[in-house]
């Protein structure tokens, strides 16, 4: 116990005396949450659109006003002729053009049928789709508002975005950032911390001392486990109070499963540190071998359902994917353990596997 205390104390000195480490540990999570929350968002807010209104009557003006009033669109300009459409798209000032045909009110009331054309700049396909969807739903609302009684029976699909009605990007990236930060802190920092001892030659001294190898690993990782807990708390606090993202499920379940993932990452960190003797290599392996797959294959940036089958298979091997599902289910959908036990089991199995392999490998190096 005395040895353990002395060791942990030393680790704290290492962590807090290096400004870069302190920055990565505490600045990184905050920065990532803020960057993803406010800068890198795929939400559409106040997109500029243009309107080409051939009817110019009361009802069409009302529709345009409703579009303009929504928080998704700003009617940037009104066009006179169809040749203007090409011009405004090429100028890049608007992302969508809405064309309202002649005799809007008349046709609507008499025939119950009008066609509104929505033209979107699909050079950014995701944005174009989002804009068209938003505009369609505003138009739908509009027609319901005025013509419900007169309309004959029509089938109108009613779309409800469950769990995330405002389509907030934060619902997706907060779980992603949690996975990334835990990877950074637990895997990269731990592997670097262990490899640094090898580079310095202090590892030899530690191994030649009465400290048991297992105790060395545990005391090297405990501080990072603790820091992971602090980081998880920081991220959750920021997402609740800054990004208005509620925690719908059990906080206890969320935090304990995050700690499980932190242990997964720690064991990966130990595994990396036992396969290299240089801090740079440890960092490269952590970044290229773990951080990139976490971003690409966890479903956080790109939906796994859209990937080709082999990639979908590979994504199953990325621990972050399972953690990402767990966080989404618990935090956003508010589901309990019964709904995620399979994911937890997979993550737990992976953790156990990495832990056993990394400790075995660490011991192997000794003999």
């Amino acid at each position, binding site marked *: 116990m*005395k*040895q353990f*205390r*002395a*060791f942990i*104390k*030393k680790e704290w*000195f*290492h962590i807090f*005396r*290096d400004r870069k480490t302190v920055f990565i540990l505490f600045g990184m999570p905050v920065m990532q949450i803020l960057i993803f929350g406010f800068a890198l968002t795929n939400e559409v807010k106040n997109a500029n659109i243009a309107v080409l209104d051939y009817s110019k009557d009361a009802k069409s003006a009302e529709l345009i006003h409703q579009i303009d009033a929504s928080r998704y669109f700003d009617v940037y300009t009104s066009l006179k002729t169809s040749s203007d459409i090409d011009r405004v798209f090429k100028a890049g000032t608007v992302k969508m053009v809405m064309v309202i045909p002649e005799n809007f009110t008349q046709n609507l009331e008499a025939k119950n049928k009008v066609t509104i054309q929505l033209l979107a700049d699909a050079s950014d396909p995701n944005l174009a789709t989002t804009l068209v969807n938003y505009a369609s739903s505003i138009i739908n609302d509009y027609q319901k508002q005025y013509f419900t009684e007169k309309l004959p029976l029509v089938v109108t699909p009613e779309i409800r975005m469950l769990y995330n009605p405002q389509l907030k990007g934060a619902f997706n990236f907060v779980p992603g950032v949690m996975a990334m930060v835990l990877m950074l802190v637990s895997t990269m920092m731990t592997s670097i911390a262990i490899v640094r001892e090898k580079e*310095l*030659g*202090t590892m*030899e*001294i*530690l*191994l*030649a*001392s*009465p*400290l*048991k190898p297992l105790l060395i690993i545990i005391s090297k990782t405990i501080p990072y486990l603790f820091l992971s807990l602090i980081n998880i708390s920081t991220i959750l606090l920021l997402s609740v109070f800054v990004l208005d993202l509620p925690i719908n499920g059990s906080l206890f379940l969320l935090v304990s499963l995050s700690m499980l993932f932190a242990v997964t990452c720690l064991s990966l960190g130990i595994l990396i540190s036992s396969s290299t003797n240089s801090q740079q290599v440890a960092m490269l392996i952590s970044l290229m071998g773990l951080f990139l797959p976490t971003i690409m294959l966890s479903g956080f940036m790109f939906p796994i359902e859209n990937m080709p089958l082999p990639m979908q298979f590979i994504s199953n091997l990325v621990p972050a994917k399972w953690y990402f599902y767990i966080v989404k289910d618990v935090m956003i959908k508010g589901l309990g353990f019964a709904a995620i036990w399979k994911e937890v089991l997979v993550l737990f199995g992976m953790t156990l596997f990495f832990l056993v392999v990394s400790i075995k490998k660490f011991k192997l190096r*000794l*003999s």
Partner: protein
Amino acid sequence: MNNTTNNGREVVISATNLTKQFGDFIATNAISFEVYKGEIFGFLGANGAGKTTAMKMLCGLSSPSRGSATVAGFDVSTESEKIKRNIGYMSQKFSLYEDLTVTENIRFYAGIYGLSIPVIKEKTNVLLQQLNMESQRNVLVKALPLGWKQKLAFSIAIIHDPAVVFLDEPTGGVDPITRREFWEMIYSAANRGTTAFVTTHYMDEAEYCNRISIMVDGKIEALGTPSDLKKEFNSVTMDDVFLKLARNAKRIGD
């Protein structure tokens, strides 16, 4: 400690046909020798001769493939935990934590050897006094000159009064005056009964040892006092002795 004696001298390290084999490669080939209490034993050999492997086995870091050895009365194959408690180890990198202060380093290493806090405090004060480093006690180790780091590392390696201290090329990169002072520290530790097991590249340092062994291609080719060896190999200096032996080596150093 149940140390054996040989000709009235207490045996601290005893190796019998100690062998380490990695696949087909025999790193250390059946070496046998004895080291006595309070002795300074030089362990020489070119790079790749098998010194490090032998030393690792004696420190309990690696178990022998064949043969046996005892250190401080404990068997290297079965009692490595007890061996680790009774040895000190200092590597050529001096192995101090640069971002820790002098006292923090002392406390950490004393702490992992399980010394109690009052003992650590007392030892720290004595050690700093001996090294004349009292005013530097709260200085980060990275700010110290190399020679001071080296002396500090040695004092820390023997802070728990080990039976044997293993010194792996302890004077690398240090100026001759500091080296001289360092050897005085080894002598004084040896006089207090701590056996020093030293590997070195410097042949002038080999002369400071009570006895030396020279390893070539995994085997001990020569063992004796420096003057005996010079006589045996008909040489004036240890350098000559070493060259005569090492010239026949087949392995290329790493």
